[in-house]
């Protein structure tokens, strides 16, 4: 965190909106990238990014410069995204529909966007907590300690959840026989 950021955080904590605007502009790319993990809809994603920054503004008083600002911001954003997943999971349970589309082979080999769609289709079949831990572990490359801090879980729980989530995801992938479609990936 540079000196300018530190000054802007202090000013924003005292209600300076322009200082907070500079912080938003500085970190909106990081938060957009993170929120894209929670939805593939641009409109929903934009709303999530906004909500994360608004929540951050009203929680600024709790930021004590102990961790990098971006880490603190990502913790808030992660929880905003996690709330969305939990809400979606509840709605899906309530209406009792089979919401997951079938996996289709990517049109073009090594197309990251297609692979991303496949992975998200698989992840949607998991419970929000399992999905969360794998997303942070694999996509965000977070350590167990970082995941624990983001989610407010202890590290043992993160390890257990990651192990079980991996097993569940493998089971789903095997049942859906995606390896035949993705043979070239090896």
């Amino acid at each position, binding site marked *: 965190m540079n000196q300018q950021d530190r000054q802007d955080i202090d000013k924003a904590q005292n209600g300076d909106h322009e200082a907070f605007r500079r912080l938003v502009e500085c970190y*909106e790319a990081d938060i957009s990238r993170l929120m*894209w993990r929670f939805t593939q809809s641009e409109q929903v*994603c934009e709303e999530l990014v*906004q909500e994360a920054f*608004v929540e951050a503004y009203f929680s600024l008083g709790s930021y004590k410069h102990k961790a990098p600002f971006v880490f603190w911001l990502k913790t808030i954003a992660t929880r905003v995204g996690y709330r969305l997943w939990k809400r979606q999971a509840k709605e899906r349970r309530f209406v009792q529909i089979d919401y997951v589309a079938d996996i289709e082979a990517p049109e073009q080999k090594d197309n990251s966007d297609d692979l*991303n769609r496949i992975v998200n289709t698989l992840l949607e079949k998991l419970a929000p907590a399992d999905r969360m831990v794998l997303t942070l572990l*694999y996509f965000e490359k977070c350590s167990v300690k970082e995941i624990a801090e983001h989610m407010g879980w202890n590290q043992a729980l993160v390890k257990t959840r990651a192990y079980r989530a991996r097993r569940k995801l493998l089971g789903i*992938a095997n049942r859906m026989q995606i390896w035949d479609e993705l043979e070239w*990936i090896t």
Partner: protein
Amino acid sequence: MDNLNKLELLFERAGQASMPVFHVSDQVLAEIAARQSIQLRPWSIMAGISAAAAVIALVYTVNTWMSMTWSLAEYFDPTVLDIIL
């Protein structure tokens, strides 16, 4: 390569997908301003409660004073009141 490694590889390649960047500073500041305008601050709640308590205390005092005056007038003989006053 076993399926677990394949899965990790799948995540790694999927993680390279293109991602949009949203420029939200204007909307964020507008939303903050909107929420602040409807937000009740603790000091305004305290001021409201204090003002209401002051009005109630004033009404109660006036009411008690008036009822005491009337009851004194009724209790005492007017001549005694004349002597006292």
